């Protein structure tokens, strides 16, 4: 049932991205060089699907995460962040492309709408 992470966000990963690939199993480390290469490839793949603007936005966000928290993160965690952030970007761009009019107001909590009373 696994799907491309760009298509959706799951209840377990929310906006941090639905990483459909076996990220943890592919983390560089004792598993060896081949798997590390595969992980690097998956990052490249996720990034390569993004527009230049999307890639730049992801890189800027990653840079900010590493600036604030980089000293706490292992190389494997940094790689994981790069991958998930790249996979998440597509969803954000889809959301931003949804047509909204200037007058479309936000709902900060669920509204109790009853039988068309919003009209």
């Amino acid at each position, binding site marked *: 049932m696994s799907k491309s992470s760009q298509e*959706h966000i799951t209840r377990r990963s929310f906006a*941090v991205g639905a990483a459909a690939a076996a990220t943890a199993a592919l983390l560089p480390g004792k598993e060896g060089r081949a798997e590390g290469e595969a992980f690097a490839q998956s990052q490249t793949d996720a990034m390569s699907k993004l527009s230049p603007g999307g890639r730049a936005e992801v890189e800027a*966000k990653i840079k900010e995460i590493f600036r604030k928290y980089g000293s706490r993160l292992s190389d494997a965690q940094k790689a994981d*962040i790069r991958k*998930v952030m790249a996979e998440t970007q597509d969803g*954000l761009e889809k*959301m931003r492309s949804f047509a909204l009019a200037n007058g479309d*107001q936000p709902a900060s*909590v*669920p509204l109790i709408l009853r039988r068309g009373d919003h009209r």
Partner: protein
Amino acid sequence: MLSDDVLYLPVTELSRRIRLRQLSPVKLTESYLERSQKVGARLNAYATLTSDLALKQAHAAEKEIAAGKHRGPLHGIPYAAKDLLAVKGYPTAWGARPYKDQSFDYDATVIKKLDAAGAVLIGKAAMIELAGGLGYRYASASAGGPTKNPWNEEFWTCGSSSGSAAIVGAGLAAFALGTETWGSIICPSGFVGISGLRPTFGRVSRYGAMALAYSMDHIGPMCRSADDCDLVLKVISGHDPQDAGSLAEPQAKYAGAVPPAKPLRVGWIANQWKEISPDVNKYSTAAREVLGKSNLLKLSTVSLPEGPWEIAAGVIVSVEGAAAFRDLIQSGKVSELNDPLGKIGGYMNETISASDHMTAERIRRIVQKKMDDLFTQVDVLATSSLPVTATKLDVNLDEALTFPDPIGGIGNICGLPAISVPCGFDHVGLPISIQFIGRPLDDAQVVQAARIFQAQTDWHKRHPKLS
């Protein structure tokens, strides 16, 4: 110790026997505690057993009932509460190692309400750390380890109300409280084959509950039947000035489900699951046929509106979660969480812009209107609770339990009530369930649809054989 036949009875029947003094609340509590100590420990179902409190409450209930004072249908009924609900005098660790020593000097509102109704708290149920608020990839994302499915201990219960589901499914208590921000009642209820109700947002007070997403968190009952969910929701619903999201009393208070004056219009969702396992398809099709044959229901097929609802829901949860757990994230104590994604998820969630968050909230209003329009055609929506049955304990959930779930995102972003009830078993004996979803405040219609289904089927009466 009382037999399994008694311990698996629904609250409605346990309550009747207690009221008629055919069943002792003390014996019932002692039996559930004994079973919880043995089976519960094996399943990783509990964070804490509250044995002293339980026995004190059970003895008080027995004494009152013997004196002719019966408080109502939950008097003397043992239950468990998810370990994100504050209970004075006991740890409330939110399923997470960084909070293992945390306790509160007050009871959550739902705990107070159940205490006033005479219910007996026998334990705090295990859960996914922080209710999955910073993300997770493995069932082991819980301070006590993965919770095992009572139907097959090599499989998971789903989360985040994992212990609550296992407790009800394994006959360790009569009912449990769970919470849902996105799937955390519906999924565990589906994987374990119990009846779990997510009430309308704002109907049940969250005061004293861990906050994950202020605009999406719900507390609800997890039981053995829709009737039991109805009983429990009547007790725990109502306005609470201590919860900013609480509805006004006339809306918040749930009066209970009564038989409808005319057939309920049920819309089977045509576009919920992109893929579905053959077993789930077989039994959900059979369930649909049951619904179609009922003269109390009028079945049709409907489609959910298309749009980025799940993404918007994910953005809202992530931003609210980053705010709720800001101290944990910024202190670096997220590294003490079990799950590899949980350790880094907060850092990523903090990068979501205010503009994206506001866009998500504007989209929420759009989908709320679209769902309100859909509910002019039908009273209740129905679909399979999940497209698959329970996953193995050790799998990467990004691979094994990842699929679009539009009604899950929509249901929680819009605060819609929903109930999951069992409708069959797969080829290895794991439960399959369907869910009913309603318009805000139509909890009674959702419960009534499930009741009608359960009156025609006996899936909810089956239980695992546990040694």
